[in-house]
């Protein structure tokens, strides 16, 4: 895998300083949580993402974006993870932008995404476990449009999204990847129940009861939704992997710092070998997870056959490593780590949500096995 180019390093530095300054937990996550914000993030910050061009990271240049790829998105997402930044960047600028790429919806939504006005979300899960091909929600043709029936859950930012990309069955039966169609469902169609997740982020449960939708809501082809959905999920999974690496790195930096300051038994606790070895192990695991996330992104960008396998590897590895990092983080902080006042617990909560998003560690291990033919 090639090293980062100068342009990529510059992007990384931009994201790093911007998010450490504006996107950090005190200014964003805690603020919006404690003020009871219904979106879960600040619209000003999202606009700033737009001003910096970051919202257009995956949007082609001829449509006003930066025309960059999954590697660049990963660099930004790692910083988002490190700072626990509250932002619809992943669902909108990465997952949403990729899903509608090359379809009629690109013209409709790209300008809003670019300016930081529009927010998109992806609705896939119908139970508490991620299983896209098991989609049972139906979309029946009626007149010039469709009638939707069914329910979705764990729709991150689905409560404030201007459009929710929703996968439903227009043919076939649950378990099949054929016969699925992706719709861009505008606000006001579904019954929305707003959900606050463990990490204070906002999601939605959506219910569709004979909800009517125009035919132009279809993203791509009718019955051919698996293609844009796979594109969106691939980008989402690779993106979450990168964000999880950031969560792991942020939590571990905080923990290592604490080991160098906290005294017990007249010594810095960082002098104890039992803790040193655990911290050193974590360091290596994070480096490995980061390499996997970057490799997955790189293979996606080059359209390599192994991209799907590596994305599954990256998501599974990053989730496992991040879980270890937050658990060790809270444990090594001791009592203070259990308080709401300290940020380390926020990392634990964010990891739990991201670990689950677009397939948990077991889902992706199983996928690695299936893609390897066993």
């Amino acid at each position, binding site marked *: *895998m*090639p*090293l980062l180019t100068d342009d990529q390093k510059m992007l990384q530095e931009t994201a790093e300083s911007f998010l450490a300054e504006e996107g950090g937990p005190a200014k964003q996550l805690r603020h919006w949580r404690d003020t009871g914000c219904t979106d879960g993030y600040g619209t000003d910050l999202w606009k700033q993402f737009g001003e910096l061009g970051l919202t257009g990271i995956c949007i082609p240049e001829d449509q006003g974006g930066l025309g960059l790829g999954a590697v660049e998105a990963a660099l930004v997402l790692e910083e988002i993870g490190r700072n626990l930044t509250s932002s619809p960047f992943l669902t909108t600028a990465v997952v949403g932008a990729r899903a509608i790429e090359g379809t009629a919806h690109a013209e409709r939504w790209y300008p809003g995404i670019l300016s930081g006005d529009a927010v998109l979300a992806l609705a896939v899960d119908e139970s508490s476990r991620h299983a896209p091909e098991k989609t049972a929600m139906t979309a029946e043709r009626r007149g010039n449009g469709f009638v939707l029936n069914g329910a979705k859950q764990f729709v991150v930012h689905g409560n404030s999204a201007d459009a929710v990309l929703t996968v439903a069955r227009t043919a076939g039966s649950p378990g099949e990847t054929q016969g699925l169609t992706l719709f861009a469902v505008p606000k006001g169609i579904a019954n929305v129940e707003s959900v606050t997740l463990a990490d204070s982020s906002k999601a939605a449960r959506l219910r569709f009861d004979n909800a009517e939708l125009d035919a132009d809501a279809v993203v791509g082809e009718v019955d051919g939704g698996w293609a844009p959905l796979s594109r969106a999920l691939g980008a989402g999974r690779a993106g979450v992997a990168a964000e999880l690496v950031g969560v792991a790195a942020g939590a571990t930096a905080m923990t*290592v710092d604490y*080991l*160098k300051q906290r005294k017990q038994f007249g*010594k*810095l606790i*960082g*002098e104890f*070998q039992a803790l*040193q*070895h655990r*911290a*050193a*192990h974590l*360091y*290596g*695991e994070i*480096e*490995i*997870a980061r*390499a*996997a996330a*970057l*490799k997955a992104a790189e293979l996606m960008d080059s359209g390599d056959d192994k991209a799907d*396998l*590596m994305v*599954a*590897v*990256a998501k*599974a*590895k990053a989730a*496992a490593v991040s879980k270890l990092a937050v658990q060790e983080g809270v444990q090594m902080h001791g009592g203070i780590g259990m308080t709401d006042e300290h940020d380390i617990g926020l990392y634990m909560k964010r990891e739990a949500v991201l670990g689950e998003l677009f397939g948990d560690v*077991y889902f*992706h*291990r*199983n996928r*690695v*096995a299936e893609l*390897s*033919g*066993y």
Partner: protein
Amino acid sequence: MTDLDTFRSETRAWLETNCPPEMREPVQSEKDMCWGGRNWTFQSDAQRVWLERMVERGWTVPHWPRDYGGAGLSPAEAKVLKEEMARIGARSPLSSFGISMLGPALLKFGSDEQKKRFLPEIARGEIRWCQGYSEPGAGSDLAGLQTKAEAVSGEEGGDHWLVNGQKVWTSYADKADWIFCLVRTSSESKHSGISFLLFDMTTPGVSTKPILLISGNSPFCETFFDDVRVPKDQVVGEVNRGWDVAKYLLGHEREMIAGMGLGATDGTLGSILRPDDPFLRAEVAAFDVDALAFAAMSERFFEMFKAGEAHPASPSMMKYAGTELNKRRHELVMAAGGSDALEWDSERSSEGKAARDWLRTKANSIEGGTSEIQLNIVAKHILGLPGA
């Protein structure tokens, strides 16, 4: 077409013509590897021809300068060569501590004369080297070595070192032609009284004794030095500053051990084992995730290392992670093999390959610095933890 594309197509064509079909079969046992040296007996004509052809192109050490027997390839070209060899399953033409350990140290610390004398021999596989680091009682405390080298003025003209002491865990000392060896030249300071010395294993006073391992094999030896006379100019780097050379070389050794046994196959472990038990399948899948992620790290580390962007202590992290992973791999191979894998000696067992390989991997996290030592190094040099 870029220069690299041209290089790739030329390399591919050359390998296609010149790599004998027998040298594209997977390595089954140590016998299949070519170690070279004065006493080497080729296992087949193909093994000999393959080595000769690769030596002629400088491709046993492709990135070394041409003057020293290499091909002067850029990192990108060396990578292409590696990829093209892997594509046809070509065996390494030469396995050599000279290439993986001593060579890099000589390139960095050796005098011009030493480079000219030793490097081409290493590249051609003419001298087989062993490493004299560990000593009885020193173990992980590598600098706690006792083997002494005293400067003596020779009565027959020419100064020399007089070496006395004992080494242990000297891999293949009984088969090696020369040794690169850490010796104490001053007792004033633990780390700055060590020198890095090269000498011929046939020098009077050198003797070796194999150590039988739990795997039933004996790659390691005890090595004894009894009044061994070594010419003065065979110290690499400065006298008493051998620790710098040793540390540099250890980085390369750790890198080599980290990669041992991993990435040797095309597919995942699961695609080879085809586990039908759901619980074993889950464990193998978890392993494959870790192994593929580690492979991505190895690749990234290699690039960073070449670009000078790797932390000097990062080989310790690689060694720790890679060897722990390799042990896990062999535990799973044994589990999937069931009772078949336990056959040490039978008509079907091919000399207990599965069991012997499994037992051999247990040394991975001990040799070249234990896992615990590697974690100490990461804690101190990368994380900057106190008192480590």
